[in-house]
C-alpha cells in the first residue's frame, strides 16, 4: 500500500502558513500582523482543500478571510490611538510565555510522533458531497445548527451593544 508521503505541495503550503503565522505574531505593525494572519488563513484553506475537505476549505475562506480578518483589521483601525507602546511590543514576561509554548509544542509533537502504531496506514478518501452536508445539517445536525444560529445572533447583538458608542460616554 502506498503511504502517501509528504508531497511537495504540502511542504510549500505548510511553509507559507507557518511563515504567515510567525509574521502575524512577530511584526511590530499590527495591520501587517492582520494581513499576515490572512495569509496564514489562506494557507490553511489550501490545506483543507488538499485534505479533500472542500466545503471546510471554502468555509474557511469565506468566514475567516472574509469576515474575521476584516473584523480584526477594523478593530485595529478603531484602536489606532495606542500605537507601539514605549516598552516594546512584547510583554515583560515574554520568555515565560515562549517557554510554555515551546513546552506545549514539545509535548504535542512527542505525542504525535510516538503513536504511529495505532494509526492506520492509508484510508480511502471520504466522499462527502454538499448535498449530504446540507441534508445532515437539516437532519441529524439540525439542533446544533439552530443552537449555533442562536449563538451567532446573541454574539451579534452582544458585540453591537458592547462596541457601540454611548451617548456622552468616554471617547
Amino acid at each position, binding site marked *: 500500500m502506498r503511504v502517501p508521503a509528504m508531497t511537495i505541495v504540502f511542504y510549500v503550503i505548510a511553509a507559507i502558513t507557518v511563515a504567515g503565522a510567525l509574521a502575524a505574531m512577530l511584526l511590530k505593525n499590527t495591520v501587517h500582523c492582520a494581513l499576515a494572519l490572512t495569509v496564514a488563513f489562506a494557507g490553511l484553506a489550501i490545506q483543507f482543500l488538499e485534505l479533500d475537505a472542500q466545503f471546510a476549505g471554502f468555509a474557511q475562506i469565506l468566514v475567516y478571510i472574509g469576515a474575521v480578518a476584516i473584523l480584526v483589521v477594523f478593530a485595529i483601525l478603531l484602536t489606532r490611538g495606542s500605537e507601539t507602546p514605549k516598552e516594546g511590543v512584547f*510583554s515583560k*514576561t515574554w520568555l*515565560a*510565555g515562549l517557554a*510554555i*509554548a515551546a*513546552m*506545549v509544542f514539545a*509535548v*504535542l509533537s*512527542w*505525542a504525535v510522533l510516538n503513536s504511529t502504531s495505532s494509526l492506520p496506514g492509508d484510508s480511502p478518501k471520504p466522499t462527502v458531497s454538499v448535498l449530504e452536508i446540507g441534508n445532515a445539517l437539516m437532519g441529524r445536525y439540525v439542533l446544533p445548527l439552530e443552537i449555533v444560529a442562536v449563538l451567532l445572533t446573541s454574539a451579534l447583538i452582544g458585540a453591537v451593544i458592547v462596541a457601540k458608542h454611548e451617548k456622552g460616554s468616554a471617547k
Partner: protein
Amino acid sequence: MQATISFTPQVGASAITQLLWLIPAVPVVASGVIALLKQPKRKTAATLAIGSLGFSLLLALIAFGHVVSGWSHGNAVRETVNFSWIRVGTTNIDLGWVLDPLSAAMLVMVCFVGLLIFIYSTGYMAHDENFTRFFCFLSLFAGAMLGVVIANSLLLLFMCWELVGLTSYLLIGFWYYKPAAAAAAKKAFLTTRVGDIFFLLGMVWLASGTGTLLFYNNGGGSMEAGALASLLGQHAAWGLTAAGAIGLLIFCGAAGKSGQFPLHVWLPDAMEGPTPVSALIHAATMVAAGVYLIARVYPLMAAGSLLGGSTTALTVVTWVGAFTAVFAALIAIAQDDIKRILAYSTISQLGYMMAGLGMGGVAVGMFHLITHAFFKALLFMGAGSVIHGCHEEQNIRKMGGLKSDMPLTFVTYAAGMLALCGVPIFAGFWSKDGILEAGSHWSVSKGPVALLVFGAMLTAFYMTRQVVYVFFGHWRGHKPAHESPAVMTIPLAILAFFAFVLGLFGTPAWPWFQGFVSGREAPLEIRGLFESNVLLVMGESIGFVFVGIVLAWWLYGGKSPKPDTPDVLEKAAPLPWAWLRNRLYIDEIYGVTLIAFYAWWARVADWCDRRVWGGAVSGVAIIFRGWAQLNRLLDANVVDGTFDKGCEELSTGGGLLSRVQSGQVQAYLRWLAFAVVVLAVILIWSSRA
C-alpha cells in the same frame, strides 16, 4: 381557812376570749393609721388613739366582767386560745393568748390608766409640733403592752416585750434633737437589752426543757404540772434545778425592764421624755411589765417549794427587790429634780413589788402593782401639771407655795403622795402592808422585811421633802405659776379618787383582789383586820411612816431656803449627801468598767475586722488577681501567640496566594497552558504504562 378553788379545765373559749386579740390589735392598727397622717391632723390622731384605747378598755371590761362572773359562781376562769405559728418538720411553735384573773385585772388597769394619760397628753402636748407622731408612738406602745398582758406564749410575750422596749426608746427620745434625750433613749434600750439576752436564754432553755413555750395548754403548757415536774427533774449548775435556773434567767429580763439593781440606771435618765411618757411607761405600765412577767412565770419560779417554803429563784428575787427598794429610796432623798425623785421612787416601789412576789406570791405583788400604777401615774401627771404651770421648770428648789397657786394639782398630788407613803385608808397602805405582812411570815429570812420597813420610812421622808419644797413655803421661781387646764386636771382628779378607794379591794378584811387573782373565795370578814400579826404589821408601818413624815416636816417645813443654799441634810452630812446626790456613782462605775471594756472590745473587734478578716478577704482578692494576671499572660502570649500567629500566617499565605491573581490575562493563560501540558504528560504516561 379559805376554801381553795382550782382553775377549771378549759372546755372551750368563750366569745370574749376569742375576741381578746382585738384588745392589742386595735391600738396597733390605729398607730399605723396615725403614722400615715400628716402632722397638722392633730384632732384625727388624738381621736384615733383615744378611740382605739377606749374600745380596748370596753373589751377589757367585758373580759373582766366575764372572769369575775365566772369566779363568783365558783368556776375560776382561765381560757386560752392557742394556734400554731410556725411548723418546722414535727416541731411546732405555738402562739396564743390567755384570759385569766391576772390578765383581766392587768388589762383593765393598762387600758384605764392609759386612756386617762392619753386624754391628759392632748393637753400637755398641745404646743408641741410633733403631736401626731407622739400619739402614733403612744398607740403603738399601748398595743404592745396589751399584747404582753394577754400573751399565753413566752415567745409572743417576748415579741411584744421587745416592741414595748422599742416604743419606750422612741418615746424617751421623742425630742431627739436634744442630745440628752437621744442618749437617754439609747441607754434605756441598751440596758434593757442586757436583761433581755438572759431572758432569751431562759426562754430557749424553757423551750428545750419542756418542748413548748405556751403557758397554759390544757395540761401541756410550760406552766402546768407536767412540764414543771420534768423541769424539776433536770439539774443545772450550783445546785439549781432547771426550773430555778430558767426562773433566774427570766428574772434578769424582768430586772432590766423593771429597773432593779444593777440594771436600774436607765430609768432616771428616761425622764428626758415628755411627762405623759414618764407617767404611762415608766410608772404604770412598762416597768410593771417586768413584775407582770414574774407573776406570769410564778409557777416556774415557785416550783419545788414546799408549802410555806421558798425556792432559790424566789429568794433571789426577794433580796434583789428589797435591796433595790432601799437603795433607790436613799438616792431619792438627795435629788432636786421633781421627776428624778419620782423615778427613783418608782425604782424603789418596783423593788417592793418584786419582794412582794418573792415572799407573798402573785396576789400580793400584783395588788401593789395595780395600786402603784394609779398613784404613780397620778404623781407623774401631777408633776407634769406642776412643770407646765411653772413654765417648764423642773427643779423643786425653784418652786414653792404652789398650794395656793395650783390648788387642784396640790390636792390630787397630795392624795398620790399619801398613797405612796402608805398612809392608812389610801391604796398604797393596804398594798404595801400586804407585802410587809407576807414578808413577816417569810421562812427564809426576816432581813428583807426589815429593809422594806426602813424603805417605807425613807419613802415617807423624801416624798414629804418633795411636797414641802414644791407646794409649801414661798414661790422661789421667776414668773408666777398658774393652774393647768381642765383636760389635764380632770384625769388627775379621777386618778386621785382611785388612789383613795382602790385599796379597799384588798384589805385583810375583804381580800377581794387576792382571792380574785388566786381563784380563791374572798369573803368579807372584818375579823381579818384583827388577826394579831396583821395588826402588828399595820402598826409598825404606820409608825415608821409617821416618823418619816414628821422628820421631813421638822427639817424642811416652814422654811423656804433659796435655791443656791445647800440642803439641810447636806449641811449636816456633806459627804454622804454628795454620794446620794450623785446616785452612788453607779453610772460612773459602769462608765469606767463595762463601757470602757465594751469600747476596748469594739476597738479590738474593729482591728480584727479590718486586719484579720479584711486581710483574709484582701488575700483572697490578691490570689484572684494573681490568677487573673496569670490568665492574662497565658491569653496574651500562648493563645494570642498561637491563634493570632496562625491567623497571621493564614493571612500572609492568602496574601501570597492572591499574588497569582495578578489581573494579567496573559499570566492566567500561561498557567492554563502549563496545566494542560502537565495533564497531557500525565495522561500519556499513564496510558503508555
